[in-house]
């Protein structure tokens, strides 16, 4: 080796040795490992004292208690369930867990917007000031009154029960319009079933916590039925201790998560659950396994009876025992064999506390009222409808009743006009308030035109089943006003947007928990000052009242929405009923019917203080047999009221609960399959879109890339020649869509299953253009008795794309 090379090597050896014996390489290696921890672009909340504010979640109607964590009192960072809350006990659903993504969403509307170009042109929205926005709308409203057409204003509100809806209704009444509608909900039809059978127009209540056996006809018990977190807490309770668990039998066409977690899954043809229930009733009656005493004491119409004209009418017993409801005949319709039907009937009848519950897979739409009546009748046969029984009606929450608004002549004339949903429904014997009837009338021009349509806390342009009905109707509406906090599909089509505070920035309330037998009232409080220039919709209504003035202003003379809520709570306090659930160990599910609860509030302000610290007010369940307002004064299995209102158009069976499927439209040879839709807890399908956190949890078998996958059975795949992942066109009589197929044995052969919640076209890039909106493909059928829009299945066809 020559000198230079050796010297170089010696030098290098020295340098390397020296470097290794210094901290340089070791520190650099260590630093390179922790370098990424302080990248400036890592999202990280500010440091400081973390406190939590208890409040009530408003994302759906379940009324769960949550705690919102804030840093330095001014930045919300985390949501968890409130473990002190007696109903959800610290549980929270995935949508609420991701709830802050709605609060900080880039698609939040920062202030009032006016559409200056074509409807639907996002770029055409110009920001305007709140005073200008209120003047614009109050000006339009006042002109309508001046023209003597106050009835041309309508409002669509959310399916949640809150004092905001009652304020909106009060505004419309004082203004002179009868056109107040809500987004559909199953309780729309169950209330009517309760009215027909129990003579009480109140939501049905189920003591799920106290049942030892639950026979569920399609109710997605742990995926959003009723109050989500109440059911999750009940599920934990059902797991119980070994040897003492509650048995769940899920009757459903698809093996949903609820079915998979149940003790038994009974696959049935879609829409035939009520036929199965009739067959069970048949067996129970035939084998004398019914609660004969309770039926003879409390029920009218079980046996054949004679009506006022002297005509003998068929009772439920005769209908149930008819051959068409025998297990052998029903087996042909449902696909459940007769032996199994008898087994189910005997189990249901023999169990001491067995409860029948029901709901379509989707769970958010009214059902065919005869079917609601069938399942309710099954509970009646079992003797579940009695004080302390498993089925009842929800108690009234005695909030202060507002004094009737003074009406001026314009309002009187307006309210005297027929509510628009009734304009086309000649001969509907027993009417529920119908958003579909309304949209139909607006589209076809029946009745009178609607000039101003206000939409609050709902997004019918996307989440209304058969949303094309809404999209068509608004073309005839002069001014569409949205109160949404988000640039959702409805807001994007609006002419004027008056954005509401988000749920974390406003006072609001939850009146009643869906399906719960105890009374419930909870208040949501602002946890942070408003981030943007939004305004509480309640305050907007109060300001509109002042701007229009006269009797409308007088009817809405509260200083603020908070003052209005406080007045309502004063009424609750004055009733002396119920108690605030702030003692550990108060289990609302254990409160017995009519139990006198120790009031733990002194007066209105004291009750308000307790409610605003996150604890709900609860009251005891009521006796469903008390105050029955049917003609007979008893539970009616033969609906005398229908006979009254329906008259000649009602046939022999028509006043009894019976299997009465509404035929879907379309030619079965062209559309040989059935499309049934469903929802899952990790894919929001209501007013709020699915937040990005939850999109990450959606399996590839439902959404892959931008494609939605519909589920079909491998047998259907074979018969249609389709393989896993194939791109197909799903078509129904309503519309067509490009989807892909997923083959799974959880799907029933001959049925295509599609999830709700995808196919958004608004909000932002993280939410839109993923999948297809199931609502655009499904068909809503008008129940001929109630005029409500029901959804059960739509005829469908799959062909290769």
């Amino acid at each position, binding site marked *: 080796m020559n*000198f230079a090379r*050796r*010297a170089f090597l*010696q*030098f*290098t*050896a*020295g*340098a*390397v*040795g*020296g*470097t290794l*014996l*210094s*901290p*340089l*390489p070791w*520190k*650099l290696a260590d*630093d*390179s490992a*922790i*370098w990424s*921890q*302080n990248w400036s672009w*890592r999202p*990280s909340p500010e440091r*400081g*004292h*973390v406190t939590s504010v208890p409040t009530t979640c408003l994302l759906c109607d379940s009324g769960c208690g949550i705690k919102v964590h804030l840093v*330095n009192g001014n930045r919300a960072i985390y949501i968890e369930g409130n473990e002190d809350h007696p109903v959800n006990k610290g549980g929270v659903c995935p949508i609420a867990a991701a709830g802050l993504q709605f609060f900080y969403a880039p698609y939040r509307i920062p202030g009032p917007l006016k559409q200056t170009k074509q409807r639907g042109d996002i770029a055409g929205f110009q920001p305007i000031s709140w005073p200008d926005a209120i003047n614009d709308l109050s000006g339009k409203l006042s002109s309508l009154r001046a023209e003597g057409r106050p009835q041309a204003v309508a409002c669509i509100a959310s399916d949640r029960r809150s004092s905001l809806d009652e304020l909106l209704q009060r505004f419309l009444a004082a203004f002179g319009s009868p056109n107040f509608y809500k987004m559909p909900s199953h309780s729309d039809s169950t209330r009517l079933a309760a009215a027909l059978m129990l003579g009480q127009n109140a939501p049905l209540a189920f003591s799920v916590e106290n049942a030892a056996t639950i026979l569920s006809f399609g109710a997605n018990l742990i995926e959003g039925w009723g109050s989500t977190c109440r059911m999750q807490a009940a599920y934990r309770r059902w797991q119980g201790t070994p040897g003492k668990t509650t048995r769940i039998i899920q009757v459903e066409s698809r093996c949903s998560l609820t079915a998979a977690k149940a003790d038994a899954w009974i696959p049935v043809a879609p829409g035939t659950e009520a036929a199965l229930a009739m067959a069970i009733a048949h067996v129970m009656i035939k084998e004398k396994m019914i609660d004969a005493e309770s039926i003879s004491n409390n029920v009218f119409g079980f046996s054949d009876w004679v009506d006022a004209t002297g005509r003998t009418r068929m009772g439920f017993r005769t209908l149930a025992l008819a051959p068409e409801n025998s297990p052998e005949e029903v087996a042909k319709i449902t696909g459940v064999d007769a032996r199994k039907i008898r087994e189910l009937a005997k189990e249901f009848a023999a169990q001491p506390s067995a409860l029948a519950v029901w709901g379509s897979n989707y769970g958010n739409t009214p059902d065919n009222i005869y079917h609601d009546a069938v399942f309710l009748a099954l509970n009646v046969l079992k003797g579940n409808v009695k004080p302390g029984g498993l089925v009842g009606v929800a108690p009234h929450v005695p909030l202060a009743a507002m004094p009737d608004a003074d009406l001026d002549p314009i309002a009187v004339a307006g309210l005297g006009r027929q509510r628009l949903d009734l304009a086309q429904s000649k001969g509907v014997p027993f009417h529920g308030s119908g958003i579909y009837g309304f949209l139909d009338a607006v589209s076809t021009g029946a009745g009178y035109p609607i000039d101003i349509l206000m939409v609050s806390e709902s997004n019918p342009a996307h989440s209304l089943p058969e949303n094309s009905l809404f999209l068509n109707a608004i073309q005839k509406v002069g001014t569409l006003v949205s109160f949404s906090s988000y640039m959702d599909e409805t807001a994007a089509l609006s002419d004027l947007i008056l954005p509401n505070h988000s749920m974390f920035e406003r006072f609001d309330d939850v009146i009643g928990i869906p399906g719960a037998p105890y009374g419930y009232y909870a208040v949501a409080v602002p946890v942070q000052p408003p981030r943007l220039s939004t305004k509480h919709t309640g305050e907007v209504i109060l300001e509109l009242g002042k701007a229009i003035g006269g009797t409308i202003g007088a009817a809405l003379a509260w200083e603020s929405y908070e003052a209005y809520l406080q007045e309502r709570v004063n009424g609750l306090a004055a009733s002396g009923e119920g108690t605030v659930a702030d003692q550990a160990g108060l289990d609302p599910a254990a409160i017995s019917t009519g139990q006198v609860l120790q009031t733990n509030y002194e007066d209105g302000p004291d009750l308000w203080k307790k409610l605003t610290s996150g604890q709900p007010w609860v009251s005891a369940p009521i006796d469903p047999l008390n105050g029955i307002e049917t003609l007979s004064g008893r539970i009616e299995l033969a609906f005398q009221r229908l006979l009254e209102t329906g008259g000649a158009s009602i046939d022999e069976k028509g006043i009894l609960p019976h299997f009465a499927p509404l035929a879907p439209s379309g030619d079965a040879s062209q559309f040989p399959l059935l499309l049934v839709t469903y929802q899952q807890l990790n894919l929001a399908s209501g007013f709020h879109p699915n937040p990005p956190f939850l999109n990450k949890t959606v399996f590839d078998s439902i959404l892959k890339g931008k494609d939605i996958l519909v589920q079909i059975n491998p047998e259907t795949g074979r018969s249609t020649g389709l393989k896993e992942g194939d791109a197909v066109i799903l078509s129904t009589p309503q519309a067509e869509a490009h989807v892909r197929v997923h083959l799974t044995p959880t799907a029933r052969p001959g049925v295509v299953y599609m999830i709700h919640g995808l196919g958004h076209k608004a909000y932002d890039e993280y939410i839109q253009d993923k999948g297809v909106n199931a609502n655009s493909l499904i068909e809503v059928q008008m129940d001929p008795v109630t005029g409500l829009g029901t959804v059960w299945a739509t005829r469908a066809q799959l062909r290769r794309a």
Partner: protein
Amino acid sequence: MKEDKKKGSGKGWIGGVIFFAGFIPALILGWVVFPSVLFSQKPQPMNFSHVAHQDSTCEDCHSLREDGTYTGIPDLDKCIECHESPMGSTEDERILVEDYIQQNKPIPWKAYSWQPDNVYFSHAPHKGAEMQCTTCHRDVTQETTLPAYYENRITGYSKGTMQMVDCEKCHAERNVSNECELCHK
């Protein structure tokens, strides 16, 4: 050939010199130059003299809250308790009152013991074990000026931040768990 291998760097002592010509500068580079280059000095928003605040006890500003969290470097609210208007005439206090208190702006102190987001540290069990503050933190009782704050240019960390090994050593000595989940939830 016997003569050749003793020429040039073949001669033992020349090789050694060349070796050390690499070795010594490398040591200097690693021990002296590297640290001074690696760390930049960042100024604090203003000076804070612990000595000037001897009227208060340590716990007046640095204490465990009721919910178990530690106040750490106190919020602006704590300063406002006394300094709503200037108490003296120093430039530092002027900065405090005019630039921060009156603008209700939180003071961006540079924390010498700053720990990253992936570390969960709670003062409560350490205070509970009756450790002295000075076991981990510098003694501030005689301090009139804040020491220089050195920030690692690569990682952004304060030079004074305790490394994981420092915590682990003490835990091991005192028989406290060194499980991952204890500090990395």
